[in-house]
């Protein structure tokens, strides 16, 4: 049973009846994951976060548990940018009802700010930032700027 497993591992997080568990998050990225999926201090979800937990699969990891909300695939895929190994577990009635990986989307809209100060996406125009996900990184749809590293620091 999951509950027992958690208890043995000494996790402080209590089981949830329904909701979403984002597991195998790159260690240290849990708060950024929450930011990317739009959960901030002003939203009402009940959330537990565990960081730097030992993991057999990826060394150390972060875990996020969100009560009473089942995240949709489009909502979570964008976290693949910073946590490509994450798994999304939908919990129903205390059990893992569905489990999925995350896939990097083709485009990232409105999450990342273009680092180019001369870019039109950094003005008051009625558009959201938009990056094409390419092999080498994220390319601004507007100014062609390529973000190759440290994507987290460009998250709005």
């Amino acid at each position, binding site marked *: 049973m999951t509950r027992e497993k958690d208890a043995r591992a000494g996790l402080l997080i209590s089981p949830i009846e329904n909701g979403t568990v984002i597991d195998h998050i790159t260690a240290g990225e849990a708060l950024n994951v929450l930011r990317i999926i739009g959960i901030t201090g002003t939203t009402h979800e009940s959330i537990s976060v565990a960081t730097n937990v030992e993991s057999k699969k990826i060394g150390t990891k972060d875990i996020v548990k969100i009560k009473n909300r089942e995240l949709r695939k489009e909502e979570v895929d964008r976290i693949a940018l910073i946590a490509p190994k994450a798994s999304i577990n939908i919990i129903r009635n205390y059990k893992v009802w569905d489990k999925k990986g995350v896939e990097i989307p083709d485009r990232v809209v409105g999450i990342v700010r273009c680092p180019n100060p001369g*870019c039109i*996406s950094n003005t008051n*125009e009625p558009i959201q930032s938009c990056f094409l996900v390419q092999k*080498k990184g994220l390319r601004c749809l507007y100014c062609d700027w390529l973000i190759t590293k440290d994507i987290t620091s460009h998250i709005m």
Partner: protein
Amino acid sequence: MRHIISIRDLGKEEIGRILDEAAAIQSRSYDPSALKGKLLGLLFFEPSTRTRMSFAAAMARLGGNFLSMDSVEASSMAKGETLADTIRVVSGYVDAIVLRHPKEGAARLASEFATVPVINAGDGAGQHPSQTLLDLFTIRQSMPLEGIHVGLLGDLRYGRTAHSLTHALSLYNVTIHTITPKGLELPAGLATELRDAGTEVIEHGDIASCIRDLDVLYVTRIQRERFPDAASYFKVASSYRVTPELLTGTKNNFIVLHPLPRLDEIDPRVDELPCARYFEQSANGIAVRMAMLLRVMT
């Protein structure tokens, strides 16, 4: 709806089509009333008399009319208004928009809000596809583009014409030679991108070390603003100046191009040499822009 925003999204086939059309236009095989009854909006948020005039001339030669807003008018019209709104409004007046704007990506944004085709006539440090197309056109008048050696001389760090051109050249298996003063090299990201695309990029410290290998020398301006004082500018500028003496022993069909206006980069004595093609290059802008207008409006 067809827009022309960047060389990158045109692709080789579309570029070839525009250049062929421009060649036909230059040999006078075109319909001078092809755009009769059409109205072109020239929306310039930044001064650029040459580009504006050449689009106006291109439109007139195809029998069309144009509305022109210069930078002062455009910016007062847009006072407090977003570019998106200006574009929506102007879309209601004209059949196509030519946009020059100081912000990078402005033309892409405009294409999202316009209900008529948009042609990018330069957005900040970003793209300037009509310049690149006329550069390619001018080279192609003298030689096939495939596999040639092109030297880019001058400010390759900030020069948008050079950036745009390198993207286009990489489609033709061209070897790029860069000749730049310290600090004005091609941005590292761009160089890597070109190399990843299979283009050989060779850096040189001076013109003499590669001039005899080149088919084309593309000279760009070295801007005075990039230097702390006049003395250091003149020192650099004079050591990168193209003179007839430097151009001895070049290949037979070698040509020199420059997007103009030039300052001291090219010795006026070079103008007399058969390899000097920058004034033809500039004149080619009309045929190329006519081809672009036809492409988006017919």
